[in-house]
């Protein structure tokens, strides 16, 4: 009889405990932990952080178990709080792994574009070679000079364009050529001296800092300085023209120091026959 009574009391006690657990309101911490775990497991990086997800799951299970056993115990809220943090940590670990993968893919794609761009420059140089030959240049010497300026040369609707950094040619706000600039300009003179029938336009550009009028004047004086140097070195003055473009036609963002430096430049345009000019 005593045994039956004992069993009845245990069963009744378990039933009462279960009833208490189900009727107890879920603490905010546990609700947050459940939500955080759900969010983490459905995040994009979830599969990349499986170990951390498992830790989060174990923590949540411990909290749920404690809630079922003793909902009112502060330990329930503590374990739930910890479970929520573990879930957020798992999600952060997954995000990190996903972003690192994305970064690698992005860098690879940029590399491919840069290779393609180099190949494009090679194609442009090949096209320039043909144009120069047809313009009756001293082909061999001229081509060797241009190859050394590979990174500065491009072909566009105006003709062959050689872009030189303003910072290399001139001091800040100055219009006198720096001594170091002459070496680069000498290379260009050697390449161009054979192109007797082609017009050359030297265009000066500035960044967008300061008054437009002043920048146009500065860029014009700089273009003239380059043109006069070319004339001193043997290029016919009558085939050259110097133009100040000021801050127009920027090729980089003027908001950054690097962008402004890029925009401060001189472009030497060897006009293709019948080419458009700005």
């Amino acid at each position, binding site marked *: 009889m005593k045994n039956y009574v004992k069993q009845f009391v245990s069963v009744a006690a378990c039933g009462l405990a279960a009833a208490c657990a189900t009727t107890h309101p879920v603490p905010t911490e546990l609700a947050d932990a459940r939500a955080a775990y759900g969010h983490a497991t459905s995040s994009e990086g979830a599969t990349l952080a499986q170990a951390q997800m498992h830790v989060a799951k174990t923590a949540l299970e411990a909290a749920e178990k404690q809630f079922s056993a003793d909902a009112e115990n502060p330990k329930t809220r503590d374990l739930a*709080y910890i479970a929520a943090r573990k879930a957020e940590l798992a999600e952060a*670990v997954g995000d*990190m792994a996903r972003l*690192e993968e994305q*970064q690698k893919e*992005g860098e690879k794609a940029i590399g491919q574009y840069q290779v393609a761009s180099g190949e494009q420059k090679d194609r442009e140089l090949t096209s320039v070679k043909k144009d120069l030959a047809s313009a009756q240049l001293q082909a061999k010497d001229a081509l060797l000079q241009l190859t050394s300026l590979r990174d500065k040369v491009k072909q566009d609707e105006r003709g062959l364009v050689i872009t030189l950094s303003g910072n290399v040619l001139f001091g800040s706000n100055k219009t006198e050529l720096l001594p170091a600039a002459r070496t680069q300009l000498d290379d260009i003179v050697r390449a161009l001296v054979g192109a007797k029938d082609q017009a050359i336009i030297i265009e000066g550009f500035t960044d967008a800092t300061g008054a437009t009028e002043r920048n146009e004047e500065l860029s014009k004086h700089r273009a003239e300085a380059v043109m006069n140097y070319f004339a001193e070195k043997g290029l016919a003055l009558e085939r050259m023209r110097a133009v100040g473009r000021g801050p127009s036609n920027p090729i980089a963002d003027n908001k950054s120091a690097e962008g402004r430096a890029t925009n401060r430049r001189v472009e030497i345009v060897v006009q293709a026959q019948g080419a458009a000019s700005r």
Partner: protein
Amino acid sequence: MRIKSIVTGSLAALALAACATVPAPQVRLADSQAAVRAAGEVGADKVPKAALHLQLANEGLETAQKMISKGQNERAEYTLQRAQADAELAIALAKLEPVRNKVLQTTEQLEQLKAKNVR
């Protein structure tokens, strides 16, 4: 009545004895302090969401130390676990921020290259 008070008194004595036998969570305290220090070192205070969890971790440490001084060792243990979890999350969030920014820059650069290539 007398039996009731004997039983109540015994239960209370047992509870007190149980509390007194829980040692101060020195290892957990050291671990939590180390995690909080690490969070500070990776610049968690400079990333908004990480900074929040770093602050929660610091507050948890402070609360736990007060609990230890009062002999509330079991409560202190759980409070320190919470603090450590906050600090570990702060570390992860702080490390995530520069990676996220770098990916944004790379994506922008790629978009510019694509646009240039189309022209």
